[in-house]
């Protein structure tokens, strides 16, 4: 029990410590300062920009920046949709995988272009090696870079003083890809191969087991994808069961490196902000606020999973290692619970234990993580969500003390708050309306278990499965209560649309907000200024996040996980 907490604590502390270094490095990369890796990476950056035909000195306002972002993403969507629809005849398909069916292809490509990585297919049976490389892994890099680019542009807007321009989208995108993700992914991929993650172009192995049966073992180009799936908070695994699969996550050390990879860039992003707006204290306050949400969730989840499942305890087996259904022996309850929280607060969505089989309240924590969607958050976009909450908190605090709300010396006015509200309210709307529609369809269909075949688990847990799916789509997370039979036109199309809207609304609205703030003059701070870099503000922010971000999910939490918990305790 206590070693569980030691392992969890060491993982978190190590990630925080290294995020300081990476945050400084990213600041240098995005402000054009020299770094140690320049001799290696600068030539690649220049080559990509030259071939693309970008003038690195060209600056873009928020509109042009958004247009570039959308156009590049649309092109990627179309190109990768074509590949999965034709994968049968394309090269590198040793296991003879068929073309993807259109609604599944729509869902899959929307899922991967939005950095969500919700998977309604299973990798080992649904994708060729070519698709894994040129669609999945490719998108895992560039969509993560899209998020980072957008976040950097938003930060420039916040920091700007009468600034009309937010930077150049393709320059930011290339820098994020070539100088942040690529070197990290090469290192992480190498460590994973050392630990046992395969990297081969050979097809599945046909083994003859000790007892003489045939066992077909799927393998493939696994290590490169696992590295970037974690670093880019993508989460889409090579195999169906993701990082529970021993090939994707072979050892506790591999698990440590993968856990680190999930949060390292989102954590570093906070420090990058501190450097870019020249306010380290603000970064400390935001970071501490995030920790004050994250750490209690982790401790609670570890306690729930280590405590075991009361229904299994009633059967009488030795449950001293906690709830073990859907978990791997090498990780145990503690590291599984840590991962479940980390992967959902960051919009990563990879799993090292089956979330559908978590204890009811242990499974509530991933839901809470996705409802908040801003504690460290997905690379780039999660931090944008947090900055939106910061602006709302500034506004609320300003109203409470009767001053004009200001952030970084700039007045926060009606237009900014409208854009912030749009970004904030879309999220619960998508989740709650989506779950309501799905529940309605389920409840009004005769004999839904046979006709629809969606739910693997009855009762409150079945409701949680539908709730989880829409939460995951809206949070661009990608994990699932995988008992949900989700490869049907209803789920493919509904979650596909939710993923697209939930990706681009919370990127474009904040870019517009940043554009509006950038052109305003920054007033010098006076003694009357409400300081955002104080503990008081941190507490206000924490409270605003909990109240605004969670309260409206209370009813569904009660209907799903809490109802199941109470039933089990009975």
């Amino acid at each position, binding site marked *: 029990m206590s070693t569980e907490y030691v392992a969890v604590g060491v993982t978190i502390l190590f990630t925080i410590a290294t995020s300081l270094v990476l945050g400084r490095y990213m600041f240098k990369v995005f402000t054009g300062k020299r770094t140690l890796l320049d001799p290696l990476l600068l030539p690649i950056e220049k080559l990509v920009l030259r071939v693309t035909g970008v003038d690195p000195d060209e600056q873009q306002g928020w509109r042009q920046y958004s247009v570039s972002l959308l156009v590049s993403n649309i092109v990627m969507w179309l190109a990768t949709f074509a590949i999965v629809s034709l994968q049968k005849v394309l090269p590198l398909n040793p296991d003879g995988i068929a073309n993807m069916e259109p609604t599944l292809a729509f869902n899959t490509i929307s899922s991967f272009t939005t950095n969500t990585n919700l998977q309604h297919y299973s990798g080992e049976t649904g994708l060729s090696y070519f698709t894994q*490389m040129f669609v999945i*892994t490719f998108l895992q890099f560039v969509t993560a870079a899209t998020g980072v680019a957008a976040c950097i542009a938003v930060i420039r807007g916040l920091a700007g003083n009468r600034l009309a321009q937010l930077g150049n989208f393709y320059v930011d995108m290339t820098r994020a890809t070539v100088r942040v993700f690529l070197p990290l992914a090469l290192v992480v991929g190498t460590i994973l191969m050392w630990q046992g993650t*395969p990297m081969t172009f050979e097809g599945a192995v046909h083994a003859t087991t000790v007892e003489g049966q045939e066992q*077909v073992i799927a393998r493939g180009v696994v*290590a*490169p994808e696992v590295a970037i799936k974690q670093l880019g908070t993508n989460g889409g695994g090579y195999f*169906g069961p993701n990082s529970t699969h021993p090939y994707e996550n072979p050892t506790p050390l591999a698990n*440590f490196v993968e856990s680190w990879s999930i949060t390292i860039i989102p954590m570093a992003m906070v420090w990058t902000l501190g450097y870019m707006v020249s306010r380290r204290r603000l970064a400390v306050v935001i970071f501490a606020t995030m920790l004050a949400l994250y750490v209690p969730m982790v401790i609670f989840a570890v306690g729930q999973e280590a405590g075991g499942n009361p229904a299994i305890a009633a059967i009488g087996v030795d449950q001293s290692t906690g709830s*073990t259904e859907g978990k791997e022996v090498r990780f145990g309850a503690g590291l599984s619970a840590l991962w479940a929280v980390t992967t959902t607060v960051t919009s990563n969505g990879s799993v090292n234990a089956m979330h559908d089989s978590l204890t009811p309240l242990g499974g509530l924590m991933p839901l809470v993580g996705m409802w908040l969607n801003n504690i460290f958050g997905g690379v780039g976009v999660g931090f944008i969500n947090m900055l939106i909450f910061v602006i709302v908190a500034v506004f609320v605090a300003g109203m409470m003390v009767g001053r004009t709300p200001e952030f970084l010396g700039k007045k926060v006015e009606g237009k900014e708050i409208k854009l912030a509200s749009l970004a904030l309210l879309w999220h619960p709307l998508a989740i709650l309306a989506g779950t309501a529609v799905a529940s309605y369809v389920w409840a009004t269909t005769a004999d839904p278990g046979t006709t629809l075949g969606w739910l693997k688990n009855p009762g409150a847990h079945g409701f949680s499965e539908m709730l989880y799916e829409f939460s995951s789509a809206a949070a661009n997370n990608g994990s699932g209560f995988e008992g949900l039979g989700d490869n049907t036109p209803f789920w493919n199309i509904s979650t596909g649309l939710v993923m697209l809207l939930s990706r681009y609304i919370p990127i474009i609205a904040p870019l517009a907000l940043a554009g509006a703030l950038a052109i305003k003059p920054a007033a010098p701070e006076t003694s009357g200024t409400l300081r955002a870099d104080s503990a008081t503000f941190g507490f206000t922010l924490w409270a605003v996040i909990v109240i605004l971000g969670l309260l409206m999910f209370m009813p569904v939490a009660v209907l799903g996980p809490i109802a199941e918990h109470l039933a089990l305790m009975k």
Partner: protein
Amino acid sequence: MIRQLQLGIRFTLVTMVMLGGGYHAALWAIGQAAFPSQAEGSLIRRADGIIVGSRLIAQKFTRPEYFQSRPSGVDYNAASTGGTNHGPSNPDHLKAVQERLDAVMTQENATASQVPSELVTASGGGLDPHLPPAAVELQAARVAAARNVPVERVRELIATHIEPPTLGFLGRARVNVLELNLALDEEFQ
């Protein structure tokens, strides 16, 4: 707008080649040079070259002279993997656990409280190659009896196969079932 489209297409092509092609080629080369065995899937070959399986992938053991693997939601199908996705309150789940427990209790002549839950619950990916030491030790007497060897010698073999938590605190102590069974065959022909 035409220019925006041109930029989008060219950027997509160049990054697709770099990341889909170059990045994979680089890691493949590192794997071949430094970790060739892991890169092909940590396969275990017999002396005659036949592949028995992978040390990372659980396989099915049913005979009494072998230690059994962690239960699998997909019957150890390593070409289509997954968990059971049973929720904690699902009656099917509790029934499956009860059935596995009954089988283990009969087979190992044990009481319920002696059975570690890992032996009666399915793993996440369905291919968990490990069991906790207690779940292996529970099977020692049956394996020793089936092989007609003293149980102490089987226990000694188990002890040499326990992998401790990494650095003493990361993960759990565990035994690789396939490797242990191969060692059994080698030790007690």
